[in-house]
């Protein structure tokens, strides 16, 4: 998509945040190892890797998403229409696929018998 706006600022911001998180993780690597070893005595420490994983997934996930986008790698569509919400719960012969897309590859009907 050559005319699409590239999220350079967001990429840089999330990139720096992600880099900082990794720098902190490895600066305090020994502390994280010690906490892991102490988990058997202090069970609540199990939360540390879980919380760390969530935090990293947020910042690094946003960074990687913006990173590829800023390089021009984008999905083939941007909007999704809910399908068959009001159409009752029975399968219909012409029900489009949930999340049907406007790209050629995505336009395929589900042929329910």
């Amino acid at each position: 998509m050559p005319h699409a706006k590239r999220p350079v600022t967001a990429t840089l911001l999330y990139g720096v945040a992600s880099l900082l998180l990794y720098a902190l993780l490895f600066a305090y690597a020994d502390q994280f190892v010690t906490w892991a070893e102490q988990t058997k005595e202090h069970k609540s420490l199990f939360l540390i890797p879980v919380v760390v994983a969530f935090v990293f997934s947020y910042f690094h996930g946003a960074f990687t998403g913006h990173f590829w986008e800023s390089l021009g790698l984008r999905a083939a569509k941007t909007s999704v229409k809910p399908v068959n919400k009001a159409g009752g719960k029975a399968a219909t012969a012409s029900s489009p696929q949930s999340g049907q897309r406007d790209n050629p590859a995505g336009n395929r009907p589900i042929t329910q018998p």
Partner: protein
Amino acid sequence: MESSLFIDITLTSGLALFVVGFVGGMVSGFIGSGGAFVLTPAMMTLGVPGIVAVASNICHKFPKSLVGAMKRHKYGQVDVKLGLIMGLFAEAGMLAGKQVMTGIKHTYGDVGTSLYVSVVFVIVLAIVGGFVLRDAYRMFQQEKAAGGGVAPHQVTRLARWVQSIRIPGTMVWFPSIQAEVSLLFIVPLGFATGMLAATIAVGGFIGVPAMIYVLGAPALMASATELVIAFVMGLGGTILYALDGVVDIRLAMIILAGSLFGIQIGAIGTTYVKDSVVKLVMGLIMVIVLFSRFFYVPGYLSRLELITPLPETTIATLKLLGDATLVLAMAVGGLTIIIALIKGMAAHRLVQEV
């Protein structure tokens, strides 16, 4: 590090894990799972104890799946309800699978467990992988006959039967299936997905085909929904292993660093391809992984003295060939995704220009 459980991480080992994580993430973003079967052995090769390798792998899996699921949800490919319900029962299946593994380990030792894993690998991948690949081939033929069009998603006879069964009080509507299905069918499928995840680390090899062929979901939605299942299973698994203090968060976050780059590409790739391509990639990986087992099994049989003992050098060579085949599976999967993405983008650009 003084601890024997947590290894020192060098620049080389860190980079190696980053790269494997990247390819694994790309495959996961595309087919909903995969990568784990290479990551765990890769970490063990670097000297990480087995339990820490499994735990750290699971700890990178849930945030990766979360990011992938959110990305593909934006594309309208995720059936959250189906993913959460299957994920819940997959969690139970994972616990049961872990018990089975522990039982086998106590009775037959590590080699017995490895042999069990290999047998499950061969049976599941031969049946399901062969079926998926055959279906992908059939769809390609249909598309070719239609002059490059898109083969319509066809609900299998089994899925039609499953959708036709009405059990009062258990029926739930699923957007991906566009029909009501009894929870009594979802429970065993979720459970089997979890059991397989606990056994070979890739529950999606059951979960995704089950959603396609047993429930009737399109391949694109099944592979996206698998990410929700993987998230639920991964979160539960991480908590369990973290309580034992065996999660190496440093390793997990290095793999995550690579896999989040990869999962974005895999997820974006799905918006440019047809169902048949998702099936092709999944079938290819499954069948190549299946062949890797043929190299491992003689060594296990030899160690259990079920065949004439083989020389250690032969066992080591066969294991190396098996590991190489696993890497090949990932490489083929990754390459196929990149090619499909490039072709899809080019075709899309052409359509837009017209």
